[in-house]
């Protein structure tokens, strides 16, 4: 420990100018943030005066410069006792590698992580949040920044000898990963199981970065470390190649066992006369150089329990011809949030033009697999609308901005949890805690805890319209302060799959754009 502190103290003295510059950048960011927040000018409604616009640009620049400063500082502190080469002064001195590594990590923790955390806490406090109450989110965000950004930088610094080489290596690494992602996309298509694959890949990449740092400090085997880092883009391609799309989806979104009713029942959409609602072609799209037709198919859903809902997340389409030939799409993103009472929906699926032309004149069997998350309502909070800031526990801080026709909200660090905001629209009855067609707005995400690393400590968004309402005149302009508004959080219960099979189905040939009925 003595040696760790001895090296840490030396590095602190050596890089005091760099540390002070970084602290000045962060102090500047905090100062500008405070000013902009106080004047509410960062709301970006477009009517800011000149000085505020300049400060907004400077704030943005600082948000870029600070990570660049981290990059420089990590390069300086790691290259001070560089790990590549055989002429370093320290390798024939009584350095303990664990002490050296710990000293470097301590340096990054003290002058990057800790200062960042302090500034984030200060900004949050300025916005009206309690930093202590939001500490778990701040720490998670810090962990993500450390893993996403600081760890790869440290690993690259550990295999290079100076800042210039580190920069070139970093650019090369970004290029290699970009190429690998492009190849992966060609191999696997825009499938949502790759999101899960990406998580596995991220975990592997982080493990490789950690291994590289440890190997370099313990053994200084630069060639081995470089091979390990090069393996990351290779892994991207390999994972995309071998990823078992359907098995992965079945594992994450289980299919209801035989004899057990699915939590959501899907059926063919019928009109008032009992006839199938017409399908339509809604256009064409181009993916990876291939042209696709977009087919719209209405469907009905039922069996949603009271207080529950579903969030659609993925769609897989299979078309089977009478001769037994078939075409299946990969799992593709598909969105939409449904509550009890929502019965009608549509899917848009992409089908390659060649496949479409082959099957369009045949009666086929259309099989739709839908992957979704079941969500459950939590405890609602109803507060009167106010032009002053009001706090919604677990959600954030909001204020009614009638002059802009918006309800402006801030959430600490990440997107808020998926929340239904409902209110009593003028001339309509108020409905709290249950979904109504009018006066509701979905905010946030069920994935809020893994929404990535943020440099800015809060996420802001504006509610400018309500579902089902006539928003043309700006419905929020009509709401009066004091009107009750209800925030109902939803959280995921589980994930599941349901399917819909339509026999004797004819692919539509008419381009008749239809409005989604949800």
């Amino acid at each position, binding site marked *: 420990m*003595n*040696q760790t502190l*001895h090296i840490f103290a*030396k590095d602190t*003295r*050596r890089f005091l100018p760099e540390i002070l510059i970084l602290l000045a950048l962060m102090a500047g960011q905090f100062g500008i943030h405070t000013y902009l927040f106080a004047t509410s000018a960062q709301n970006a409604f477009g009517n800011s005066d000149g000085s505020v616009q300049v400060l907004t640009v400077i704030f943005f620049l600082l948000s870029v410069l600070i990570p660049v400063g981290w990059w420089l500082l990590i390069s300086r502190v790691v290259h*001070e006792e560089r790990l590549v080469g*055989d*002429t*370093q*002064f320290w*390798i*024939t*001195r*009584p*350095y*303990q*590698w664990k002490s050296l590594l710990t000293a470097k990590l301590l340096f990054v923790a003290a002058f990057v992580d800790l200062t960042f955390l302090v500034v984030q806490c200060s900004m949050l406090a300025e916005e009206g949040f309690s930093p202590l109450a939001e500490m778990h989110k701040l720490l998670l965000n810090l962990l993500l920044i450390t893993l996403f950004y600081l760890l790869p930088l440290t690993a690259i610094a550990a295999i290079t000898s100076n800042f210039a080489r580190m920069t070139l290596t970093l650019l090369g690494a970004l290029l290699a990963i970009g190429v690998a992602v492009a190849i992966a996309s060609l191999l696997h298509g825009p499938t949502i199981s790759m999101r899960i694959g990406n998580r596995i890949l991220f975990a592997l990449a982080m493990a490789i970065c950690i291994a590289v740092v440890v190997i370099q400090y313990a053994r200084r085997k630069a060639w081995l470390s470089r091979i390990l880092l090069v393996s990351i883009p290779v892994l991207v391609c390999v994972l995309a190649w071998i990823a078992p799309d359907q098995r992965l989806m079945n594992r994450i979104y289980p299919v209801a066992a035989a004899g057990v009713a699915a939590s959501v029942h899907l059926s063919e959409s019928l009109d008032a006369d009992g006839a199938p609602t017409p399908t339509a072609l809604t256009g064409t799209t181009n993916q990876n150089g291939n042209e696709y037709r977009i087919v719209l198919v209405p469907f009905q859903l039922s069996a949603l329990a009271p207080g529950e809902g579903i969030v659609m997340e993925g769609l897989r389409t299979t078309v089977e011809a009478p001769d037994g030939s078939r075409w299946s799409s990969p799992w593709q993103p598909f969105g939409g949030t449904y509550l009890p009472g929502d019965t009608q929906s549509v899917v848009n699926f992409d089908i390659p033009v060649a496949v479409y032309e082959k099957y369009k004149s045949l009666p086929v069997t259309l099989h739709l697999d839908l992957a979704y998350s079941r969500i459950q309502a939590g405890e609602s909070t109803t507060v009167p609308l106010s032009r002053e800031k009001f706090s919604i526990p677990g959600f954030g801080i909001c204020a009614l901005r009638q002059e802009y026709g918006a309800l402006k909200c801030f959430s600490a660090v990440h997107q808020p949890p998926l929340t239904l905001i409902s209110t009593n629209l003028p001339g309509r009855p108020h409905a709290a805690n249950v979904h109504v067609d009018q006066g509701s707005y979905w905010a946030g995400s069920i994935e809020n805890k893994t929404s990535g690393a943020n440099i800015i400590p809060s996420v802001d968004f504006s509610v400018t319209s309500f579902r089902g309402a006539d928003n043309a005149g700006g419905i929020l302009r009509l709401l009066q302060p004091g009107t009750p508004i209800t925030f109902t959080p939803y959280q995921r219960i589980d994930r599941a799959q349901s399917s819909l099979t339509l026999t004797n189905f004819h692919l539509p040939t008419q381009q008749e754009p239809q409005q989604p009925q949800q």
Partner: protein
Amino acid sequence: MNSIIHTESLSKRFGHTDAVNGVDLAVPEGAIYALVGPNGAGKTTLIKMLMNILRPTAGSAQLLGIDTRQLVGQAFNRIGYVSENQDLPEGMTVGGMLDYFRGFYSTWDRTLERQLVAQFDLPLARKLKHLSRGMKMKAAFASSLAYRPKLIVLDEPFSGLDPLVRDELIEGLIELAPETTIFISSHDLAEIESFSSHVGYLEQGRLLFSEEMSVLSGRFREVTVTLASPAPVPDGLPAAWLQPQTADCVLRFVDSAYDEAAAAREVAERFPSARDVSFDPMSLRSIFLAIAKSHRGSAASQPITAQEVEA
């Protein structure tokens, strides 16, 4: 006597090149061992293996009884290393560097440090990157001597330095010599001849010999034979007689296995008509030039020991 440095068949191969080839070396405690050889002989590679900077391809080495592959961390408490190729913390001042290194060594001697700073006239407040090469080397010496290491390994420490700096450094070394073992590599023979107790000669990665300086000096003589009449170099001369050449009536060669009585007898037997014979001691430089020239051109250098030469 214990060996502070001991190697067995130590080898290092870079691609198809044998930089060091089967070196067996033993440096006794308290010795000032000079490893000499031409540029590219493998001296730096050998030293880097001793310091665990490079891993041997084959063979093994021990420093202070520790396998060099295990030579990390605290083991360097007892070893000082200065190399012409080694970096220094250039951003630090001389004083800052000494302060910093002091924290690593339990045996750091502040008095000796002050003495070395004064002796080398080191500017404590100046950054290392602003120092001349000679001053940097002095700073490196001070930082490697102040903790009184049991072994000091020096790789071409005087290369490119002016004579004054060289003398100052040698003086600093000699003052520490009674309590330490010094292993020094150099291709400048004159500078190490004055203070080395042992010497080893490395050429093309092979250690041609390794012995005490006095023994080496004792077994080499430049022999001048004045003949009665001009004659070519006779055939069948002993292998230990290196570089025989004639000029008019004079035959000269280097006897690499000199023994006073045996040499006089051998010369008398081979040249009965010789009018005069002289056996002159040789400088280290002359010895190595003779060895180098006699080996240059041969397909593969083989180690020479006094015993082999005598045989």
